[in-house]
């Protein structure tokens, strides 16, 4: 994990430089995109082959984002093979590795949704890692621009007021022992450190969610390593397998080392 974190930071520095020079890569051609993906692939999965995700993983995102700061994406992994984790890479973002989920014994990894920022016309990749260590990739091209430098919210102070508040709700009919989809909402501005105040010439300091741990009755559902590419007030939809009654616990840690945790009774009263 240490090397991945290092890589993330290195990638951030490199792309920040490009980001500041001029207009995004909107006119990029396919060859340049393929080159970038090759580089990223080497950096994130050195020496490991990536297989076509075909029947195992599918990535869905709107072809043209309605709001670049809040692009909903869906990852389907219904191919049958047991999945250990999934990576989300947004090639054109300043920090391309947006999320890495590691699934635990309580998870149903067949479907995952989240909201991300997209800074330019870019390819997006979702890579499933199976229990036997194979990697399967799905790709989607998204037209969006400005999600990373567009202001996080109307008011920085107000954004921090409510930080760490959480909500959880279940989708569909609850049945013990049957897979269930849960929607987790976390209030967090996820400041990415790229918004400059033109009067003070200072950037709003970065403050973003580094990890989220979701457990059910003490067993892990997922561990998420995330980064500045998650939207403000992240929303994550994930699957888990509940008993008749139990506690779901969520622990969120951010880059300022603040920890927020919340327990939910499932199903709620």
């Amino acid at each position: 994990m240490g090397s991945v974190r290092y890589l993330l930071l290195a990638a951030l520095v490199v792309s920040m430089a490009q980001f500041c020079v001029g207009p995004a890569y909107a006119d990029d051609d396919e060859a340049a995109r393929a080159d970038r993906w090759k580089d990223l692939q080497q950096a994130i999965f050195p020496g490991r082959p990536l297989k076509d995700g075909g029947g195992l993983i599918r990535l869905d995102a709107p072809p043209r984002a309605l709001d670049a700061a809040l692009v909903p994406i869906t990852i389907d992994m219904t191919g049958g093979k047991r999945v250990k984790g999934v990576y989300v890479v947004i090639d054109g973002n300043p920090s391309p590795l947006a999320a890495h989920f590691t699934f635990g014994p309580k998870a149903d990894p067949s479907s995952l949704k989240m909201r991300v920022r997209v800074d330019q016309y870019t390819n997006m990749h979702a890579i499933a890692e199976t229990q036997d260590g194979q990697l399967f990739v799905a790709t989607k091209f998204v037209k969006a621009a400005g999600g990373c430098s567009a202001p996080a919210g109307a008011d920085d102070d107000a954004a921090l007021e409510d930080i760490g508040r959480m909500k959880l709700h279940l989708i569909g009919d609850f049945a013990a022992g049957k897979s269930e989809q849960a929607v987790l909402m976390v209030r967090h501005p996820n400041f990415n450190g790229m918004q400059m105040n033109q009067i003070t010439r200072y950037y709003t300091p970065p403050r973003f969610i580094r990890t989220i741990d979701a457990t059910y009755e003490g067993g892990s559902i997922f561990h998420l390593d995330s980064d500045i590419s998650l939207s403000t007030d992240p929303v994550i939809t994930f699957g888990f397998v509940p008993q008749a009654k139990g506690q779901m616990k969520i622990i969120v840690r951010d880059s300022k080392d603040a920890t927020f945790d919340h327990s939910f009774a499932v199903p709620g009263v």
Partner: protein
Amino acid sequence: MADGLLMTRRRALLSGACACLCSVRALPQRTQSAARVFAMEEVAAGIHVRRGLDEDATTRNEDGIANIGFIVGRDCVAVIDPGGSLNDGQSLRATIRQATRLPIRYVVMSHVHPDHIFGAAAFEEDKPQFVGHARLPRALALRGEYYRKRLEEVLGKERAGPVVTPTMLVQDHAEVDLGGRVLALTAHGIAHTDCDLSVIDRATGTLLPADLLFVRRVPALDGSLKGWLKQLGALQAVRARRAVPGHGPTSVDWPTGGQDLERYLSTVLRETKAAITKGMDLDAAVQTVAQGERSRWKLFDDYNGHNVTQAFKELEWDQ
């Protein structure tokens, strides 16, 4: 003023819009600024409005997509929204200079969006008060440079205009006197944006709410849906004969002219709430909410999904 000239200009403008819609995207960029004289409509005595095009910003339209204009008093002129780019502002200034020699003392900047205020720099030589909502400087600090860059990507380098910061801030209410003609200014709570300023010309009973009022062009939500409905309600209680929408026709009867907007916003509110209650995802809500409004608005497909996204984000924490 020569009517013939104005008609020609208007026709030129219209054909310009048409050419733009039909031609390929990469239009040659003009290198020199060319101020022209707009065809204005006098919606009430001394209130002149330029009808914005129902398009998004392009090289050809110079971001002249908002309704902008000026009010002439006995002693001076107030500009109410200086335009969408430096060139758009220069053209408005040339238009004013052809209509009157009175000094331009006030330039009202109705809110932070570029299509309304990037023309402000064209008026700097008049040394007016640049009037804005008390929250406008903050909004400009957060977004001004970002908007300028995006606008330059569309219009070409140096053609967006610099960001102008307001010099006279309105906290709640304020008045400016153009000489026997008092304009009442109101700084609104979060609505279309978080820095909307409206103007009432008491002499003619004309309300100038800028983008708090969209007519026929689909509204764009960038503040708070609930807040906008609240502020719209307050404006509908204002005694005025007519209103000048920020987008759409240059004048509508008031308060009836606000009914379509109220219906649209209420529909988005009601249907987004229902979608959230049903446990619908954001991507599904975007496909379904307010689709019944589709045939009633221009550019509906370009903005409705964005509006629903904003509404969803605002409302999902309520329930």
